[in-house]
């Protein structure tokens, strides 16, 4: 197992390099630079700025310096938040996004997998149909519709919850964003669990166990192991996506996370910020995929032989 982990992490390094290189050159190839504004700069000012940030050197040289700085742990200055470094921005924003994402993940897993199991066990009953309909509904609502609706309902009309703001992680400010983030995933996980568990419950071994009168709890536990395989496979990338924030939720609820840095960074051509976030996402994805695979191997012993 340790060998596998080390090997996969080692394999992750060339992946990271590939991601860094690809993003770097893609970004620089896009037209427009970080200093093109609605109020165009004089050519002299533009030249000055480019010199100050080293943007007038050939691309390869810039890439080389970037890699060298990366090795030192320096992610560079941000072009759109010029008072901060990329590392500083991420350090400030990541805890916010990660808190929201982690909470949303937990909520989604608990409710999603839970409801999915119930639906699978009570297959074709009215509970199953209700859960199916509910899941379908939550999957059909874009987050930028759910968020304002929640704000209007719970913030303006009922006045139970604040509409926006982070306030250093005050729980009341977390409720609406977490619900918005988690809602579609509850539906997705419920349906995935239901399908997978439902299949497993009808396999020969499980039916045999049931026929023999083994207690349902034991049967379920056995069935779950196999059934959770595709669910866990889905959780890996899901966790990475949730932890790195959602631009919609963070914009509408006014939360200082890093989700907005992707979109705004790309649109503003903030090269270093986008690279920093891309790197972060890459690392998370590699680590979480590894975790998901390890979990899969733990669940299904047959897989361990193959790895």
């Amino acid at each position: 197992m340790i060998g596998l982990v080390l090997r996969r992490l080692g394999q992750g390094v060339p992946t990271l390099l590939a991601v860094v290189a690809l993003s770097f050159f893609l970004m620089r190839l896009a037209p427009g630079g970080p200093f093109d504004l609605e109020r165009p700069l004089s050519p002299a000012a533009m030249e000055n700025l480019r010199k100050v940030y080293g943007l007038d050197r050939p691309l390869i040289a810039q890439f080389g310096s970037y890699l060298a700085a990366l090795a030192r742990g320096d992610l560079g200055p941000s072009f759109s938040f010029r008072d901060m470094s990329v590392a500083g921005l991420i350090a400030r924003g990541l805890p916010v996004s990660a808190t929201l994402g982690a909470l949303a993940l937990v909520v989604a897993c608990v409710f999603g997998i839970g409801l999915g199991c119930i639906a699978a066990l009570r297959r074709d009953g009215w509970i199953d149909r209700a859960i199916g309909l509910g899941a379908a509904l939550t999957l059909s609502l874009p987050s930028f519709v759910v968020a304002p609706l929640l704000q209007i309902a719970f913030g303006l009309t009922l006045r139970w919850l604040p509409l926006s703001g982070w306030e250093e992680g005050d729980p009341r400010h977390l409720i609406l964003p977490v619900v918005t983030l988690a809602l579609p995933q509850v539906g997705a996980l419920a349906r995935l669990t239901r399908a997978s568990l439902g299949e497993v419950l009808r396999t020969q071994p499980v039916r045999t166990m049931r026929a023999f009168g083994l207690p349902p709890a034991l049967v379920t536990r056995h069935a779950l192991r196999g059934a959770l395989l595709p669910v866990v496979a889905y959780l890996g990338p899901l966790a990475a996506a949730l932890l790195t924030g959602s631009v919609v939720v963070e914009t509408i609820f006014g939360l200082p996370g890093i989700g907005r840095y992707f979109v705004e960074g790309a649109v503003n051509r903030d090269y270093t910020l986008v690279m920093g976030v891309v790197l972060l996402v890459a690392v998370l994805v590699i680590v979480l995929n590894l975790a998901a695979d390890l979990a899969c191997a733990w669940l299904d012993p047959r897989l361990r032989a193959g790895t």
Partner: protein
Amino acid sequence: MIRRLARARSVVVSLVVLGLLALACLLGPAFTGHEPDRFYPDLRQLSAGLTAQPDDAHLKPALQRIAFRMRARVAASEREGDRLRLTLAADQPIDRRSLVYLPRSDLFGPPSVVAEEEDGRRLVLDVPIRHLRFLLGTDVHGRDLLTRSLVAGRVSLAVGLTATLVALLIGVGYGAAAGYAGGAVDAAMMRAVDALYALPFVFFVILLLVFFRASLVLMLLAIAAVEWLDMARIVRAQTLSLRERDFVRAARALGRSAGGIVLRHIVPNTLGPVAVAATLLVPRVILLESFLSFLGLGVQEPQTSWGVLIAEGARAIEAAPHMLAAPAFFLIATLVSLNLLGDGLADALDPRAA
């Protein structure tokens, strides 16, 4: 199997709803009585309803706007059924050519001059009033939302189906191949997937759309290029566990080719979760497209899609909630039906069901 499908009521209902929606989107716009891009500047942000327009509330402001364009004033206006007796007054003789603004507003028919007073500085007109109905209201430019929603549906459905199909084909092929091959080949292929995963979708799409100027085809490719990854992972996981099963081992022992085994034994057994994943996919694609529209990168003018309409509606949610309600209704109906259909399909395709 068809019989089993037909038995599930939800599946039948979903198919019917989807069929109706598709039909409505394809043929409906011809019957609503409005063009999708016909402007009604005097009937902007109208709520849904059955009242014939222009009604009294909108008649006066419309007349004032038109009169202003004629550089005249509305001295008197009396509505008699579907005709209007309009008296215009101005400091200069009113130019008869300006009367064309009345029919041009699409609210009125061509006027006829009943009386002319004060050397043409006062005109009495008889103007026929049109009957327009906007069942789902209008948007910020006064365009009929029902027609626009239907036309948008064509684009959204096309995008959803096509992108999903492409993603499906690539994903299943890639995932099964990786899972079956196993070992180093599998590791290499999945590392490629990891690398692609690690690029945030939005970033990738934005750059593509900016570099190659946004278009429908480009967006389709971009969406498909990202969505196949999930499919590949799921199929690969399934394949890995199926590969060690007895019937697969038997087929190998019997000397069947790898390709044959994948096609005949592995893929059919993955169809359950793949069907589920595919029906998770179509709605996700459509939602993804609406997210891009929210950012302004989705479907471009003059085309429109449910995503564009919903993004517009979400921004005007308190001022004009019907702008959100209309396309949202279509979107939700479609997505829910698709999801329920997929559920039914998964149940029906399960090779081990009783």
